[in-house]
């Protein structure tokens, strides 16, 4: 975030680096000081312990494996939601009657939090990957659907009418005119959906882990719960939290980057 000022004079560059790092550095320093006044139990959390735990967890492969497992679920769940959300969104956005039919159902499911689906998912699929997947898909579905509908209903009527005048078949108009015109909205929906999905997978894995005695769900969410429930290793929990944050940030940046590459005219 601070590297953008490279072209600016040196003094302001250092100023902005200072501004960006001063308060976080002070906070970490205060944390370290506070931790040193506590008992010298190696499990009590402090920045240095968190750093060494991070190295340990990465070098034994557990952290990377769990993160990849969670990410894999998010990607698959997001893919399912993308297909369902965009297809239904195109139909609802372009056809008034379909919209009227599905709108009440969609709106009544929207206030039901993804985690409320968890008990049902456990009943249906057990405590493995499918239960987590269904929650991720459910969570990612709504932002995708709502934004697709919004994007499609905002498509310039003139474009559609022009295509109709030229005798383009309906299905082709949908694929070649409406879909590209709604793409910015769909991309926004994708970014929001991916963020929600990443939160939902942590919640799902935590919940499954908490409610099935460790269970076989795996993933970084469950890893956190195991550290809480079995070893009370706060450093490891903090490491997992940081990884969760970094992955969320990377997902967000990746989607912004793709948005920028696909639609540079919007920036």
């Amino acid at each position, binding site marked *: 975030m601070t590297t953008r000022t490279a072209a600016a004079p040196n003094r302001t560059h250092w100023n902005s680096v200072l501004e960006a790092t001063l308060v976080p550095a002070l906070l970490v320093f205060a944390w370290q000081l506070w931790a040193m006044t506590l008992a010298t139990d190696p499990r009590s959390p402090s920045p240095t312990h968190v750093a060494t735990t991070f190295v340990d967890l990465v070098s034994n492969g557990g952290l990377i494996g769990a993160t990849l497992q969670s990410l894999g679920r998010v990607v698959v769940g997001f893919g399912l939601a993308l297909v369902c959300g965009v297809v239904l969104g195109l139909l609802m956005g372009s056809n008034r009657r379909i919209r*009227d039919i599905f709108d009440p159902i969609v709106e009544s499911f929207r206030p039901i939090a993804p985690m*409320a689906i*968890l008990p049902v998912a456990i009943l249906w699929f057990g405590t493995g990957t499918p239960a987590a997947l269904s929650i991720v898909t459910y969570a990612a579905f709504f932002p995708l659907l709502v934004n697709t509908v919004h994007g499609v209903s905002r498509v310039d009527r003139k474009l559609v009418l022009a295509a109709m005048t030229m005798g383009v078949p309906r299905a082709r108009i949908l694929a070649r005119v409406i879909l590209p015109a709604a793409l910015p909205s769909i991309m926004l929906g994708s970014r929001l959906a991916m963020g929600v999905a990443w939160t939902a997978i942590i919640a799902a894995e935590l919940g499954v882990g908490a409610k099935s005695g460790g269970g076989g769900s795996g993933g970084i969410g469950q890893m956190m719960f195991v550290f*809480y429930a079995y070893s009370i290793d706060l450093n490891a929990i903090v490491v997992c939290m940081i990884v969760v944050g970094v992955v969320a940030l990377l997902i967000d940046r990746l989607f912004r980057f793709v948005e920028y590459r696909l639609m540079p005219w919007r920036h």
Partner: protein
Amino acid sequence: MTMNVTNHRVPEQGVSRAAGVDDPASSQRSEPDAAPALPTATKPGAIRRIVSTRAFIAVRSFAAFLALWYLLAAWVGNPIQLPSPLRVAAALISLGADGELFDHALISTTRLAISLVVAVLLAVPLGFFMGLSPKANAYLDPVVELLRPISGIAWIPLGLFIFGVGDVLPVFIMVYVAFFPLLLNTIAGVRHVDGKLVNAARTMGVGRRAMLRHVIVPAALPTVMVGFRLAFAGAWAAIIAAELIGSPSGLGFAIEWYRQLLMTPKVYGFIVVIGIVGYLCDLALRALQRWLTPWAEGMELA
């Protein structure tokens, strides 16, 4: 293949099934219930117009949905996995009759209200401070941007250790979740106050306090309200997770409790309640938004 067949059959059966569900005691007389709809449909004029309104279409959609659910439940044939809507309605009535439903809903909404108030008290003043002072923003924004990607859910294990299982954990998680949309929207609202308004006020010799109170706050409030609704949406999703994992009461706890007891109709009943309470809260917030910021018509959530 069978799914397709049931799908086509739904509209014809829909209305009568739903009429039965509304009143479980009379599920057998679904035909008489549906009958009064006919004469109204043939009457011309106002009533007919009502029938073709969105409300009627919505009722029809719900009817089709309930019918589909009913058929699916019959097809699955496993009431522990998917009870029929009639059983869920019966469970809801019994939960409502012994008051358990209202107890849990009240606990959850109280926690929600407390945490939203705390989040507003923390985030809005800080947002005004950061929005008005570029220097404060430059120093504090990095901290916000470091913490924001860590979802509230990820704080649950640490929160469990610090606060234990109980009331504080869900409130803590919700305050954390609600804090960021409120803060960011407040900052954005304060920053995007129309410069012309500020200059006009300054030309007329308005002092700092009056400027804040009569110019900046009213101009920023619509954006703050949008942040408040986003905060509510996030908090409502988070409370279910927090209660499910780390609380001995509340709606999130109830669904998981009855799941473990394999009393599935009650699980579905509470899920319905979660949806209804969430919907009602959103309605209330929209009303609040219109009441507090009537000058912000047309500003909607992205």
